[in-house]
C-alpha cells in the first residue's frame, strides 16, 4: 500500500496512468490494437464500447491480470510492468469487478479480510472497515453474512474493499448494471466524492445517459481500436452510440396496431419454496397475459426472477396444476416438454450451459428444445437434415454470424448466440414466449434485432413475457411493466405510467401507495380468478 496521499502536487502535469500503443494479441486476433489512453487525477474517465470492443482486455492489462503483447504503461510518468494484480494494488490501482468474488457463507468483514494483505489484526481491520464505509456513506454491517445481503450491498463490499487500500486510481466495471436507479444515484454521489479527493476513476459502462451525467472524459473503443477520446457532456447519446457501433443503430419499430386477444398465459396465486437454501421463495404471484401483449418484469437481480422462470418453464413443478395456465390448460404439474407441446417457448437468461450445451453443435442445440414439438425426431431417430434446416433458417432470419454452417455453440459471440437462441424459439411460432434478459451482454445491433423479433412475435398474436433488468429495454417494448421484489410481483403498470421513479421505488421494495396496491392486487387475483 502506498503512503502518499492521492493529492500529489505534481499530478497535474503528468497523467496518473498512461498507456502508449498498448496491444494485446490472442493468436492472430487483436483484442487491443495500439491503444493510447491517459488517466488524470480528479477525473472520472468513461470507457465505452460494445461487447468485444476490447474494454475488458484493456482493463485487465492495467490491473495486471494479463500481460500486454506490445506497448507500454506509464504510472505517474514512469514505465510500469505489472507482474499481477497485487502489484497493481500496491501501486494504488483498485478494481471493482462486475461479477463479485464474495463467499456467501462468510461475513462482510471476513470477505474484506480475504481480499487484503492481512498485515493488520482482524479487529483493527473491522474497525477500519466500519470507518471507511461510514465516511463514504456506504453503510455495511461487518458481522452480517453475505448471502443475506442485496446485490447493491454486495457491491458496496467490493467498493469498500477497494477503498480500504486507499487507491489513487479505481476501476469500476459496469457498476450500475445490478442497481436500482436510486441505488445508482447513491453510487454517483460516492464517485463524485472520490473524484473530489483527487482520485482518478475509470468507469466502464454502456449506459450512455449515465456516462454523460457522471464522466468528464470518455474513450470509445471499437473492434479493439480507440475510436476517439471526447467530452461526453458535449456529445449526444446518439453521437456516442454511433461512435460505439460505427453505424446508425436501427430504431426498433414500435408495434403497428397489435390486437389484444384471449389470455394465453395465466399465473394464479403461485407460491413456491426454493430448491436452494439461499434462493428466493415465490410469494403469491398472479398475472394474466393476453395474445398480442408484451408484459415486462423489472427488478434487481436475485429477487426471484430465476425461480419464477423455472416455475413457468416447468424446470420446477408447482404442486397445484391450476397455478400456471398455458393456452387455457392447467400446466403447473406438466414437464417442460409438455408445456412446449402446448405452444409455450422459453429463453433463459444464461445462454451457455442453460439455453444451449456449449460444446455441442448448433444443430444439436436446435434439437435440444425442438425435439418436443417439431418434426426433428421420427420413431426415436434424429432427422439431422431437419435440425440443420432450423439452424439455416435461424441464421437467415436473424442474421446469425458464424464461421461455418454448424459450429459449436460456445464458438459464437454472445450476440450471435443470443440471436440463435431467440430465433430457435421464435421459428417454432410459439403461442407464449417467456424470455429472460433477452439482450443481456449483447451488442447494440443484435439487441435491436432481438427486440424487433419480440415485437413482431407479439404482433403475430403471441403472448410475450420479458424479464429484464434494463428498464430502457422494457420501456421500449413492453405494454405493461410489473416489478419483482423478494419473490412478490407488483401489479403491472401501463408503460406510459411506469416512470423510472415509480419503477425504482418498487424495485427497492417500497409500495407506491399501500391501500391502492392491496386493492389492485386483490382485483387482479380475482379477475384471474381460479
Amino acid at each position, binding site marked *: 500500500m502506498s503512503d502518499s496521499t492521492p493529492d500529489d502536487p505534481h499530478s497535474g502535469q503528468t497523467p496518473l496512468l498512461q498507456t502508449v500503443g498498448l496491444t494485446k494479441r*490472442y*493468436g492472430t486476433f487483436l483484442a487491443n490494437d495500439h491503444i493510447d489512453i491517459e488517466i488524470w487525477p480528479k477525473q472520472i474517465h468513461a470507457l465505452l464500447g460494445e461487447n468485444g470492443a476490447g474494454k*475488458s482486455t484493456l*482493463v*485487465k492489462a492495467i*490491473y495486471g*491480470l494479463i*500481460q500486454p503483447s506490445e506497448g507500454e504503461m506509464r504510472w505517474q510518468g514512469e514505465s510500469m*510492468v505489472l*507482474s*499481477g*494484480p*497485487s502489484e497493481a494494488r500496491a501501486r494504488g490501482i483498485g*478494481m471493482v*469487478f*462486475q*461479477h463479485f*468474488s464474495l463467499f456467501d457463507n462468510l461475513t462482510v468483514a471476513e470477505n474484506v479480510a480475504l*481480499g487484503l494483505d492481512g498485515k493488520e489484526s482482524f479487529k483493527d481491520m473491522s474497525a477500519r472497515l466500519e470507518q471507511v464505509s461510514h465516511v463514504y456513506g456506504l453503510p455495511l454491517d461487518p458481522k452480517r453474512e453475505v448471502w443475506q445481503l442485496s446485490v447493491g450491498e454486495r457491491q458496496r463490499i467490493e467498493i469498500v474493499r477497494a477503498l480500504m487500500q486507499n487507491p489513487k486510481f479505481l476501476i469500476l*466495471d459496469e457498476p450500475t448494471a445490478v442497481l436500482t436507479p436510486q441505488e445508482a444515484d447513491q453510487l454517483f454521489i460516492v464517485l463524485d466524492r472520490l473524484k473530489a479527493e483527487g482520485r482518478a476513476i475509470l468507469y466502464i459502462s454502456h449506459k450512455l445517459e449515465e456516462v454523460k451525467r457522471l464522466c468528464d472524459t470518455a474513450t470509445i473503443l471499437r473492434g479493439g481500436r480507440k475510436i476517439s477520446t471526447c467530452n461526453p457532456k458535449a456529445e449526444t447519446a446518439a453521437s456516442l452510440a454511433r461512435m460505439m457501433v460505427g453505424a446508425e443503430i436501427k430504431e426498433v419499430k414500435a408495434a403497428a396496431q397489435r390486437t389484444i386477444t384471449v389470455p394465453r398465459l395465466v399465473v394464479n396465486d403461485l407460491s413456491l419454496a426454493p430448491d436452494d437454501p439461499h434462493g428466493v421463495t415465490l410469494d403469491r404471484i398472479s398475472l394474466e397475459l393476453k395474445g398480442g401483449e408484451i408484459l415486462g418484469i423489472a427488478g434487481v437481480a436475485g429477487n426471484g426472477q430465476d425461480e419464477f422462470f423455472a416455475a413457468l*418453464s*416447468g*424446470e420446477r413443478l408447482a404442486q397445484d396444476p391450476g397455478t400456471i395456465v398455458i393456452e387455457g390448460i392447467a400446466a403447473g404439474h406438466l*414437464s*417442460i*416438454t409438455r408445456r*412446449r407441446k402446448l405452444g409455450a417457448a*422459453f429463453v*433463459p437468461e*444464461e445462454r451457455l*450451459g*442453460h*439455453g*444451449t*450445451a*456449449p*460444446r*455441442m453443435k448448433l444443430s*444439436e442445440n436446435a*434439437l*435440444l*428444445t425442438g*425435439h*418436443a414439438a417439431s418434426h426433428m*425426431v421420427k420413431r*426415436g*431417430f*434424429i432427422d439431422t437434415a431437419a435440425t440443420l434446416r432450423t439452424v439455416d433458417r435461424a441464421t437467415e432470419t436473424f442474421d446469425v454470424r458464424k464461421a461455418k454452417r454448424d459450429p*459449436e455453440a*460456445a*464458438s459464437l459471440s454472445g450476440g450471435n448466440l443470443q440471436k440463435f437462441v431467440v430465433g430457435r424459439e421464435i421459428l417454432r411460432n410459439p403461442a407464449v414466449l417467456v424470455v429472460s434478459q433477452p439482450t443481456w451482454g449483447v451488442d447494440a445491433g443484435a439487441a435491436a434485432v432481438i427486440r424487433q423479433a419480440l415485437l413482431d412475435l407479439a404482433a403475430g398474436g403471441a403472448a410475450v413475457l420479458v424479464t429484464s433488468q434494463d428498464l430502457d429495454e422494457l420501456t421500449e417494448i413492453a405494454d405493461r411493466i410489473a416489478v419483482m421484489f423478494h419473490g412478490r410481483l407488483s401489479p403491472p403498470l401501463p408503460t406510459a405510467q411506469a416512470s423510472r421513479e415509480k419503477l425504482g421505488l418498487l424495485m427497492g421494495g417500497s409500495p407506491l401507495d399501500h391501500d391502492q396496491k392491496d386493492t389492485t392486487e386483490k382485483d387482479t387475483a380475482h379477475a384471474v380468478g381460479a
Partner: protein
Amino acid sequence: MQLVLEKRAERSNTIALVSPLIAIALTIVTMSILFAILGKNPIAALGVYFIDPLTDSYSLQEIAVKATPLVMIAVGLSLCYLANAWNIGAEGQFLIGAVAGSWIAVKTQGTEAGHWVLPAMLLMGAIAGALYALIPAICKVKFGASEILTSLMLVYVADLFLDYLVRGPWRDPAGFNFPTTAEFDSVATVPVLIEGGRLHLGALIALAVVAATAVLLGRTIKGFEIRVVGAAPRAARFGGFNANQLIVLTFAVSGALAGLAGIIEVAGPVGHLQPGISPGYGFTAIIVAFLGRLNPIGILIAGLFLALTFIGGEQAQIAMKIPLDVTKVFQGILLFYVLACDSLILYRFRLISTPRQVPSGTG
C-alpha cells in the same frame, strides 16, 4: 521463464484424436525405463509385448478373445460416463451375469435340454447384470448415495458370492474338491467360429454391440439425451431430459452388457464357472472406455490394444521372466497418461517470460 497451463478458446479436435496416441507413446517410454530398471533389454521386452503376439494365428485369436469382454463392458461403461454416471462396478456385474447364466447351465446339466439353453443363459446373464447395476443406480437416484462407492463395493459381494457357490452348492462332485462347476454341456457352450480355434461367437456379438451403440449415440434422441445430460446438465434439464431416468437407464444397459460379457466368457473360453474367471476385465474396461474416447469405434480399437497387452504380458512372462503384474502397471500408467493428455484438449502449455501470481478475480 515459467510454464503455465492456459485455457484454449475452443476445444481442439486434433488433440482429441491425437491425445490417446501421445498417451501410448509416453507409456511406452515409461515402460522402457521400467524394463531397464528390472534389468531387461527394453527393445526386446517391447518386441515381445507388442510385436510377437501379432505374428501368429493363435495369438491373434487370443487377442480377439480377450478383447471381446473388454469391448462389450467398455461400450456399456461409455454410456454411463457420457451421462456423468460413474459405474465403477462392471467387474461385479460381469461376475453376477456369469453366475446367473451358469445357474441354467448347472440346472440343465446332463438333461435332454435342447438348443434353447445357451440363448436363455445369455438372456439371464444380461438381466442379472442389469438388475445388479440397478442397485447403485437406484441408491444414487433415491438417496443420493455415491454410485462410485456403492458400485465398487458390490464387486466384492459378487466375487464372494461366486466363490461360495463353486465351493458349496454348485461344486462338481467329480472335481477333486477344486472350487469349480462341472464342464458345461455342449448346448450350454458358446460355439467357436473356426474349427479347432478359440475365436467364438461372442466376438461377433461384441461387434454387433459396437455397431448398435454407434447408431444409438449418433442417430437417436435417446443417445442425444445421454450426451447432453453429461455435457451440460442444466441445458439437459431445460431440454426436458430427466437426468435420474438416464442414470438408471445407462446403469441398466452397462450392467446388462457386463453381465452378457460375463456369461459369454464362462460359457465360451472358460467352459465352466470357477473363481478367477476375470483377470479384472471390469476394471480394465474403464481404461478401454477412456482410451477409446467414450466412442464405440474408438473403444473397439482400444479394446484390441489392451488385449494385446494381456497376451504380450503372458508371453513376456514366459519368454523373459517379466512378472505378469507388470501388465497391470502398464495399464495403470496408460490410464494416467490418457487422462493427463486429455487436459490438453481444453488447455495448452505456454511459456511466460516473467513469473506472475494467480489472478485474484475474474473480469
